[in-house]
C-alpha cells in the first residue's frame, strides 16, 4: 500500500537530498510536491493545509540550517510530523469498565463493521481470554444478522439469538441483559450502516448509545475513503461521540490518506486496522509504520539515529580494532547478531533501508530471517569461549556437542562457520581498501541477506 505516495515523495526528497544548503525556496518547492502527494493519497484538503503549514514552520529555520544534510532534515520533519498527526502512541481497545463492557461499532454502509466486529471479538476472546457476546442491530441490510451469526460461529464467539422484527434499541438492551445474566465480559454491538446525514438513522444510533452507554464507540471506516473522510468522521464524532477508529481494507493498494484525515478531525486514535477478509486479519495500528510507509523512502534519518543509539560505542570501537587486526571471531559475530536484534531484527533493519519494500514483504511473510538470527545466536551461545575465539579449530565432535546444546543441526553449524569465514574475509578486504570504519548495519553477514 501507499506505493504511489511513496514514489512521489521519494522523488522530491531525493532531489532535495542531492542539493546542498536548504533555502526557504527549497522547502516550499518540496512542500508543494508533498501537498500534491498527500492530495493524491486522499488526505483531505483541510488536513493537508494544516500539515503543510505546520511542517513549513518547523522546516524553515534554525533546525534545518544547523543540519548537515538538509534533505534528510526535511525528510525527518515531514516524517515526524506525520507520525505526530497520526497519533504517536499505539492505542488499544479499552476494557477498563464494569463487565459487561459495551462496545459499539458505527460507520457508513459497507465499511466493514460486521467483519471488524467478529475480528475484534476474536482478538478479545483468544488473546485476552474475554468472554464476548456479539449482537447485530442491523435490521436494514438483508441477512446482516445472519452474517454476524455465521461469523460468530467461525470465530467461536457467542452471538445474541435473533428475534425477528425486534428493533435496534431493544436488541441492544436485550444484549446487555443477556450478557449480565450469563456473565459475559464484553458486549460488541454491530450496527447498521448509516450515512452521517441520514437524520433518522443517526437518531437511531444515538438512541442505542443512550440505552447502552458504550465504553468504546468505534468508527469503522474504509481506508480507501477519499475527501469525504473528514466530513463523515467529523459528523459521527460530533453526533455520537467516538473513542476510536478502525480502518479496514488496509490490505488494498490505497494510499491511506483517510487515516490522517480522520485522526486529525476527530482527535481519536486509530486503534486497529483490517488487513483482509479473514477473521484473523486485523492488526494494531502503528503510526510510525504507516508514516514510514506513506513516506516510503526508508527512514534514513532514524536509521542513523537508531543505529547510533543501539550500537554501543564501546563495542563498536572494539569491533573496529579487531577488524583492523583482522581478528573477527565468533564472539564478534554474536555481538553483531545481538545488535541487529536490538534494531528490530532483520525486518527492523530492512524497514529502515530504502528500496527494500518488496524484500521486506517476503520476509514478513516467511519470518525466516529473524528466526535464523535467533538460531545463530543460540548456536554461538552453546560454544565455549575458546571455541568462539578459534572457530577454525571446531571439529566434528565439538560440532556435535554444540548441536546438542543449541538444538541445531551440524549442517546449520557448518553454515554459520562458513558465514563467519566469509565475513572475516570480507572485513580483511575492507581493511585493505582502507575503509576500516565500515560498520554494520550496512554489512550484513553474508548469507543472512534474504534470498529470493
Amino acid at each position, binding site marked *: 500500500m501507499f506505493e504511489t505516495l511513496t514514489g512521489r515523495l521519494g522523488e522530491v526528497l531525493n532531489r532535495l537530498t542531492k542539493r546542498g544548503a536548504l533555502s526557504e525556496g527549497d522547502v516550499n518547492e518540496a512542500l508543494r510536491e508533498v501537498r500534491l502527494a498527500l492530495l*493524491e493519497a486522499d488526505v483531505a484538503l483541510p488536513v493537508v493545509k494544516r500539515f503543510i503549514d505546520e511542517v513549513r514552520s518547523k522546516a524553515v529555520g534554525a533546525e534545518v540550517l544547523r543540519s548537515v544534510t538538509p534533505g534528510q532534515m526535511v525528510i525527518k520533519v515531514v516524517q515526524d510530523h506525520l507520525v505526530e498527526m497520526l497519533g504517536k502512541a499505539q492505542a488499544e481497545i479499552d476494557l477498563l469498565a464494569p463487565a459487561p463492557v459495551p462496545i459499539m461499532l458505527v460507520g457508513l454502509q459497507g465499511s466493514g463493521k460486521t467483519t471488524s466486529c467478529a475480528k475484534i471479538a476474536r482478538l478479545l476472546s483468544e488473546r485476552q481470554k474475554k468472554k464476548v457476546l456479539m449482537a447485530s442491530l442491523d435490521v436494514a441490510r*438483508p441477512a*446482516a444478522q445472519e452474517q454476524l451469526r455465521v461469523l460468530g460461529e467461525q470465530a467461536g464467539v457467542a452471538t445474541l439469538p435473533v428475534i425477528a422484527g425486534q428493533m435496534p434499541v431493544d436488541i441492544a438492551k436485550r444484549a446487555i441483559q443477556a450478557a449480565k445474566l450469563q456473565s459475559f465480559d464484553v458486549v460488541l454491538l454491530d450496527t447498521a450502516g448509516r*450515512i452521517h446525514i441520514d437524520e433518522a438513522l443517526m437518531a437511531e444510533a444515538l438512541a442505542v448509545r443512550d440505552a447502552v452507554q458504550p465504553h468504546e464507540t468505534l468508527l469503522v471506516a474504509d481506508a480507501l*475513503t477519499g475527501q*469525504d473522510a473528514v466530513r463523515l468522521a467529523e459528523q459521527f464524532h460530533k453526533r455520537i461521540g467516538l473513542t476510536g477508529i478502525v480502518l479496514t481494507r488496509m490490505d488494498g493498494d490505497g*494510499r491511506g490518506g483517510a487515516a490522517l484525515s480522520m485522526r486529525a478531525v476527530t482527535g481519536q486514535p486509530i486503534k486497529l486496522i483490517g488487513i483482509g477478509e479473514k477473521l484473523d486479519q486485523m492488526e494494531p495500528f502503528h503510526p510510525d509504520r504507516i508514516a514510514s510507509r506513506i513516506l516510503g523512502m526508508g527512514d534514513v534519518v532514524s536509521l542513523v539515529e537508531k543505529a547510533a543509539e543501539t550500537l554501543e560505542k564501546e563495542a563498536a570501537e572494539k569491533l573496529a580494532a579487531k577488524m583492523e587486526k583482522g581478528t573477527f571471531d565468533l564472539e564478534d559475530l554474536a555481538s553483531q547478531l545481538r545488535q541487529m536484534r536490538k534494531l528490530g531484527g532483520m525486518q527492523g533493519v530492512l524497514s529502515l533501508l530504502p528500496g527494500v519494500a518488496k524484500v521486506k514483504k517476503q520476509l514478513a511473510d516467511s519470518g525466516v530471517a529473524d528466526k535464523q538470527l535467533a538460531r545463530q545466536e543460540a548456536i554461538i551461545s552453546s560454544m565455549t569461549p575458546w571455541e568462539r575465539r578459534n572457530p577454525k579449530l571446531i571439529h566434528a565432535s565439538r560440532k556435535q556437542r554444540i548441536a546438542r546444546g543449541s538444538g541445531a543441526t551440524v549442517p546449520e553449524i557448518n553454515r554459520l562457520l562458513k558465514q563467519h569465514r566469509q565475513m572475516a574475509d570480507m572485513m580483511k578486504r575492507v581493511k585493505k581498501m582502507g575503509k576500516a570504519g565500515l560498520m554494520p548495519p550496512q554489512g550484513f553477514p553474508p548469507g543472512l541477506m534474504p534470498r529470493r
Partner: protein
Amino acid sequence: MSETEQTEEKVGWLRRLKQGLRRSTGAFSDGIASIFTKRRLDEAALAELEELLINADLGPAAAAEVVENFRRTRFGKEVTPEEVREALAGEIAALLAPVAVPLPFLPQAKPQVILVVGVNGTGKTTTIGKLAQNFRKQGKQVMLAAGDTFRAAAIEQLQIWGERVGAPVVAGAVGGDAAGLAFDALKRAKAEGCDILLVDTAGRLQNKAHLMAELEKIGRVLKKLDPQAPHATLLVLDATTGQNALSQVEAFLGVCKVTGLVMTKLDGTARGGILVALAKKYALPVHAIGVGEAAEDMQPFDPLAFARALTGAI
C-alpha cells in the same frame, strides 16, 4: 432540513437526491459564494476553485485541468457566484455527457448475462437487486446467480433480494467455485428462457492477483455456453472512495472486460468527483447511480444533475 421535509414520507428520487446533495453541497456552495461575491476571476479565485473541486474528489490533476479550461474562457471577468456554479457545472457536464449511457438491453441474447464486479462492500449485491427490480418492472424474466460464495450470508442476502423483486436465485454451497456456479446459472437461465441473468461476485481488492484471476475464470466459463457472455460487466464504485477508484478501474479493466460503471452511495456527502477523472481517462459508460439502500434508489446517470450537485448549482 426543514420540518416539512422531514415529515414528508414519500419523497421522489429527484427530491431525495437533491435533498442529500443540497446538504452535502452546502459547504461547497458557500465556498464558491464567498470566493466570487463581487469578485473578479483572478488567480487567487481560480486556485480556490481548484481546491473546491479537489474537495469533491476530482483529484488534483483533473481539478487543475477543469480550472485551466475555465481560466481560458473566463479569466479576468466579473462573475457572480451563480454564474460560476452554472458555468462550472456546464463544463463538467460536457465532460461527462459522452459517458452517460444507459445499460443496453439485448433482447436476442436470452439471457443477456450481466456480471457485476468490484471491491468489497461497494454495493454490488444491492445494485443487482435494484437492476433486477428495474428489469422486472419492464416485464422481463430475470434470474440471479449468487456468485459471492465467500462472504458470510452473502447468498442469503441475494436470496432476499430475489424474493423482493421476484427473481429466482441460483445458489450453490458456501465456499464453492464461483465460476462453476455461474456456469450452472447460465445453463438454467437458458433452459428457462430468461431475458436477463445477473451474476453477483464476491468483493475483491484489485491488488489481489489470485482473486482477480477468479474473475477471468468466470468470464471464460460463461463463454463455453455463450461466446458473447458476459454481455456486460459492470464495475460498481463507491462514491466515498477517493483516488483509489482510478486504480480499481484500471485493474478490473485488465482482468475482465468492464463495459460500464455504476456509482453507489451518492446519497451521502461524497460527491463522486472521481467520475470526472475516470471519464477523462477511461471514457467508460456510467450506467446508473445509487442513491440509497432500497430497490428504487437507483437512477440513470444524468451528467448535468450530477455536475450541478457537484458544484452546488442546484
